[in-house]
């Protein structure tokens, strides 16, 4: 009996594996693989691959933040801090490891190991970021919406400032740290063997393409984990907590623990994104983790549709992709005859202006985002702890220090 029920209840929420759905997913996977390869093959379009790689990293970030904000309903305006920690951890620890490996005599083994270091850095960054997530989450759990926003913003800035001030001598301040130059595992083989030339199409496996696929692998892993969590005891407690925190507590959900899990898991994915970023760029500096970045990631989640995986992905692709595309197109050989270099670079600068405007307009026009989650009735959990309405007092809303005497 329960089997039958179980089949029906899990399917409507996550969708049945109908033929149509499978076809859609297969189609998407094919596109994800083939499109960038196609771009790589045409010289004028090859810069798009870099755009896709960057956008893919933001997709990971947006998915990670979505756990915290979209599922658990907690604002985080300092998410870039976890991104930064993953990136710095990856570089600092990775360089150490590579130095150690350099002592190995066997060239083949040595190259294989150094090339695989970035993969070994993934769990390292994940742990570092997750711990940071716990450290941030623990003290702020009881804070209300906008206060939480400011505190997380503060945390993000603290991390950035520590990096700028050469924290523990590891981060080298504003100059940043570079990864030791190595060929990531498999790249040389792919560059030698994965080639295809016919007509105007000249494809060679590039570094950008490598990191693009690395990011995509992480994205798939992220989606996999999130969907499994969604349909679990923890996932249910997140939804319950978001719907009605007091009712959830009364029914036995330890809301504090659930929030901590959200912070830690959300942060973890930020850390993973940091590894890809650090290794694809070869260099990490505090400039990449300014508040604007955190704000952008929040916007990707909010504008894309909080709590909705496709929404958040679309949000990230658009917000990260479009400005990069514009800069890329403006500076590419395609239009070099049409616009001057100054115009090209100022078009790039306009992206933040447009971004700011977009945020204002979206909130006024479509606050639920582009692809709203089917489940979400409201953007954010009711942030005042509405106590059960007693007969003698009207509902007690807890205002944090809102002493309204001007």
């Amino acid at each position, binding site marked *: 009996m329960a089997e039958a*029920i*179980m089949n029906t209840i899990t399917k409507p929420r996550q969708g049945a594996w109908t033929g149509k759905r499978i076809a859609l997913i297969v189609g998407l996977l094919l596109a994800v693989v083939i499109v960038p390869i196609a771009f790589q093959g045409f010289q004028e379009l090859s810069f798009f691959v870099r755009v896709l790689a960057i956008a893919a990293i933001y997709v990971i970030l947006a998915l990670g933040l979505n756990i915290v904000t979209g599922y658990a309903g907690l604002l985080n305006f300092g998410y870039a801090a976890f991104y930064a920690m993953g990136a710095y951890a990856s570089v600092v620890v990775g360089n150490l490891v590579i130095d150690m490996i350099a002592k190995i005599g066997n060239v083949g083994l040595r190259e294989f190991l150094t090339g695989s270091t970035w993969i070994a850095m993934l769990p390292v960054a994940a742990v570092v970021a997750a711990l940071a997530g716990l450290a941030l989450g623990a003290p702020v759990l009881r804070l209300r919406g906008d206060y939480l926003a400011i505190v997380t913003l503060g945390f993000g800035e603290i991390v950035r400032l520590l990096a700028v001030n050469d924290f523990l001598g590891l981060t080298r301040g504003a100059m940043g740290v570079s990864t030791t130059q190595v060929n990531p595992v498999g790249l040389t083989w792919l560059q030698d063997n994965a080639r295809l030339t016919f007509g105007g199409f000249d494809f060679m496996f590039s570094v950008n393409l490598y990191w693009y696929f690395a990011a995509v692998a992480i994205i798939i892993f992220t989606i996999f984990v999130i969907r499994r969590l969604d349909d679990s005891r*923890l996932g249910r407690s997140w*939804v319950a907590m978001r719907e009605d925190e007091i009712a959830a*507590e009364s029914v036995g959900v330890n809301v504090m623990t659930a929030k901590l899990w959200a912070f830690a898991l959300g942060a973890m994915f930020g850390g993973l994104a940091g590894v890809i970023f650090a290794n694809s760029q070869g260099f990490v500096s505090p400039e990449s983790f300014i508040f604007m970045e955190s704000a952008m990631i929040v916007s990707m989640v909010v504008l894309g549709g909080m709590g909705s995986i496709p929404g958040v992905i679309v949000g990230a692709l658009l917000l990260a992709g479009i400005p990069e595309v514009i800069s890329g197109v403006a500076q590419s050989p395609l239009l070099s005859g049409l616009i001057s270099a100054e115009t090209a670079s100022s078009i790039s600068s306009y992206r933040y202006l447009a971004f700011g405007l977009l945020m204002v307009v979206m909130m006024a026009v479509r606050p639920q985002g582009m692809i709203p989650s089917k489940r979400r009735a409201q953007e954010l959990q009711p942030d005042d702890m509405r106590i*059960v309405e007693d007969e003698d*007092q009207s509902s007690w809303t807890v205002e944090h220090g809102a002493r309204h005497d001007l």
Partner: protein
Amino acid sequence: MSLVEAINTTMQFGGLKAVNELNMHIEEGEIVALIGPNGAGKTTFFNMLTGIYKPTSGELTFAGGSVAGKKAHQICRLGIARTFQNIRLFSNMTTLENVMVGRHTRSKAGPWQAVLRSPGFKREEKATVDAAYQRLQFVGLASSANELAKNLPYGAQRRLEIARALATDPKLLLLDEPAAGMNPQESAELTKLVGRIRKSGVTVLLIEHDMKVVMDIADRIYVLDFGELIAEGKPEEIQKNPKVIEAYLGVGAEAMLAQA
């Protein structure tokens, strides 16, 4: 040892004593009713029992241990569950999912097992669904298992809240005005349901304004007014108690008593 014992329990908000030196006890297997005019402090008392408020003074024990200062989810784990005066369901979850959340304290699978889909996880999920479905059957909502909670009719929502509370395997169930807004037929069904709950081994404390329901099911009644206990006893005694009639039943009391 009583299941619930309140000794001089007081709840003070600033200058207002919402509950003033309440002394009461509940024995296992009883159905006790808490009645009184609006503003008497009944829901406040519920809130104290369930950890939402911390008593300002006095003692409040459950199964021998004090509940004062414990968090709501801890108290739930100890065995107290409740429903709310204004229904607080998880509106955008299905009926079944609402009750599944109720199994939270009686299950333990963590995120690791969830991601790995370990055999232990799968077993527990199945057990959770089974247990939830059973509770739905118990309250008569099995056919609406996959409906969104917000789409249920009012009476069904009240029953769902009860099912969710029962899913926590409580020793004590607190019902806050379960019959509110119900027609006589629904109230009669509810009375039967409460009887079945008692038979299943759960002690019940309920707040109710519907006197027919109260008189039908309650073993004992406590009457509060302005935060103070003004009467206690069996239903027949309370019905005749002049203080109660004066404070609560007021005008038209004769007519009401004649019906009860």
